[in-house]
C-alpha cells in the first residue's frame, strides 16, 4: 500500500538553481569580457547592449515576432496532423510503412539551405512556404516517435485484449495509442525546438516580415546587437513552446507523475 506523494513545484524550483546559475555566469563572463577587452560593439555587443536594443526596438521586434509565431504554429499544426494521420495509417498497413518510410527518411536528408529557396520560389513570399518548411523539418521526429511507440505496446496487454474479443481498432485506441504517448512527447519536444529555427530560416530566404527578416536586415546594416536581439526573441519563443509541450505532457501523462515513475 504505497501512498502517493505528488512532486511539489517547490522541489522543481530548487532543482532549477544550477541551470540559472550557469546561464547567469555565462552572461556575466561575456559582459565582463566585452568591457575589459574594449572590443567594438560592431564585432561583439555586450549582453546589456543587446537587452537595450530589445527595449528600444520592441515595436519592430513585436511586429516581426507575430508572423514568425504564426508560421511556426501553423507549420507545427500541419506537421502534427500529418504525422498522426500517417502514423495511424502505417500502423494499420505495415506494407505502406515499408513503401513510404524510405521517402520520409530521404526527406530528412535534404539540406534546408537548398530546399528553402526552392520552396519559396514555388510558393511565393506568403505564409505557405514557411508553413511547409516548418512542417518538413518537424514532422519526422514525431512520426518516428509515434510509430515506435505503437510497436512498444506491451504484448501481454494486446493478447489480453484479443482474448476479450477486441477488434484491431479497439486495441489501437485502448492499448497502442496510449502506449505511444510517452514516445510521442519525446518526439514532440525534439520537433518543437526545430520549429522556430525552421520558420526563421524560411523567412531569411524570402519573406515580407518576420524575425528572419529582422536578422537579415540587421546583418546587412552591420548591427550585430540587433541580430542578437532577434536571436534572444527567437530563443524565448522556442523556450516558451518547449515549456508548453512540457505542460501538456504533464497533463496527458498524469499517471506517470502520480505513480512516481
Amino acid at each position, binding site marked *: *500500500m*504505497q501512498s*502517493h506523494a505528488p512532486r511539489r513545484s517547490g522541489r522543481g524550483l530548487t532543482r532549477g538553481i544550477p541551470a540559472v546559475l550557469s546561464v547567469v555566469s555565462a552572461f556575466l563572463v561575456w559582459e565582463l569580457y566585452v568591457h575589459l577587452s574594449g572590443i567594438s560593439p560592431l564585432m561583439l555587443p555586450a549582453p546589456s547592449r543587446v537587452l537595450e536594443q530589445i527595449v528600444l526596438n520592441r515595436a519592430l521586434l513585436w511586429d516581426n515576432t507575430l508572423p514568425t509565431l504564426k508560421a511556426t504554429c501553423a507549420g507545427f499544426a500541419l506537421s502534427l496532423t500529418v504525422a498522426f494521420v500517417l502514423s495511424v495509417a502505417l500502423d494499420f498497413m505495415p506494407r505502406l510503412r515499408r513503401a513510404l518510410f524510405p521517402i520520409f527518411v530521404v526527406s530528412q536528408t535534404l539540406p534546408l539551405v537548398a530546399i528553402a529557396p526552392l520552396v519559396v520560389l514555388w510558393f511565393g513570399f506568403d505564409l505557405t512556404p514557411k508553413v511547409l518548411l516548418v512542417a518538413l523539418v518537424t514532422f519526422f521526429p514525431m512520426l518516428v516517435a509515434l510509430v515506435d511507440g505503437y510497436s512498444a505496446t*506491451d504484448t*501481454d*496487454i494486446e*493478447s*489480453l*485484449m*484479443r*482474448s*476479450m*474479443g*477486441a477488434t484491431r481498432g*479497439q486495441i489501437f485506441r*485502448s*492499448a497502442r495509442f*496510449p502506449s505511444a*504517448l510517452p514516445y510521442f512527447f519525446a518526439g514532440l519536444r525534439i520537433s518543437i525546438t526545430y520549429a522556430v529555427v525552421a520558420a526563421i530560416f524560411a523567412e531569411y530566404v524570402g519573406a515580407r516580415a518576420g524575425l528572419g527578416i529582422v536578422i537579415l536586415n540587421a546583418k546587412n546594416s552591420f548591427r550585430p546587437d540587433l541580430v542578437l536581439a532577434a536571436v534572444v526573441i527567437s530563443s524565448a519563443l522556442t523556450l516558451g513552446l518547449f515549456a508548453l509541450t512540457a505542460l501538456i505532457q504533464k497533463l496527458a*501523462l498524469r*499517471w*506517470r507523475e*502520480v*505513480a*512516481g*515513475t
Partner: protein
Amino acid sequence: MSVLVMKNVSVTLGGTSILDDVSLHVGQGEFVSILGPSGAGKSTIFRLLTGAVEHDSGQITCNGQPLTAKQQSFAFMPQRDALMPWRRIIDNLTLGLEVQGISREEARARVTPLLADFGLEDFARHYPAQLSGGMRQRAALLRTVVQDRPVLLLDEPFGALDALTRTQMQAWFEKRWRAARWTTLLVTHDVREAVALSDRIFVLSRRPAHVLTEVQVPGPRPRLGRRITPEAHALEAQVLDILLNQTGKAL
C-alpha cells in the same frame, strides 16, 4: 456436465509439435488445473482457447458448441497482471466490458459492487503503479471475472508474486472461489498450488505435451490457511513423482 471439452487436440507451431493428442474436460463449477514442467505447452492451451493459435486436429467444444472465433467463452488472466498503467484501477477493471460494447457508466456500475470483495474499494481511483503486487493481481482477477464468461482461464496467476504474498493470495483466492464457484482452468507448475486449489489435475508431459495422468483431489475445503493434511502431502509427493519420473529428465 462438462462445460469445456478438448478431445485429441494436437497443435504444431512452426514445425514443432507442441500439443500431442491432449484430451481434457472441465465441469460446471469445477476447478481444474493443468500441471506441467516449464515450456511444456501449458500456455499454448490457453492461446488455443483464446484464439491466438489454431489446432491441427481434434475437437474443442464449449457447452456442446464447437469453438468459434466469434463466441467468447473464456475470460483470461495472464501471468503478469497486464494492467494498463495509464488507466485507473476502476478503468482497468471495466476494460473487458468496454470491449463488449458496454458503456463506461454501466461497466462501472457492474464493477463497483465487487470492489469490496476484492479488497479494492479504497483503490478504484489509484493507478496500477500505486498498488502492491498482491493488489494488482487481485485487480487482474476482478477484471477477469467481471467479464462473466463461462470459463476462467488463469495462467500462473500467482507465479510472479513473492512467496509470502503468493501464500496469502492463494488462501484469499480459495475463499473467493468457494463463494463464487467459477468454472476454472488453472495453468501452473506449482504442485502444491495445484493440489491445494483443484478438484482435478491434468499432469502434462514435457513437449510435445500429452496428458500423463488425471488426478482427482479429494478432501474438504478450505484447504489453505491451515496445516497441510497427510493425504494432501501424499498426493503432492505422488504428483511430483509422476512429473519427475515420467516426463524424462527433470531438475
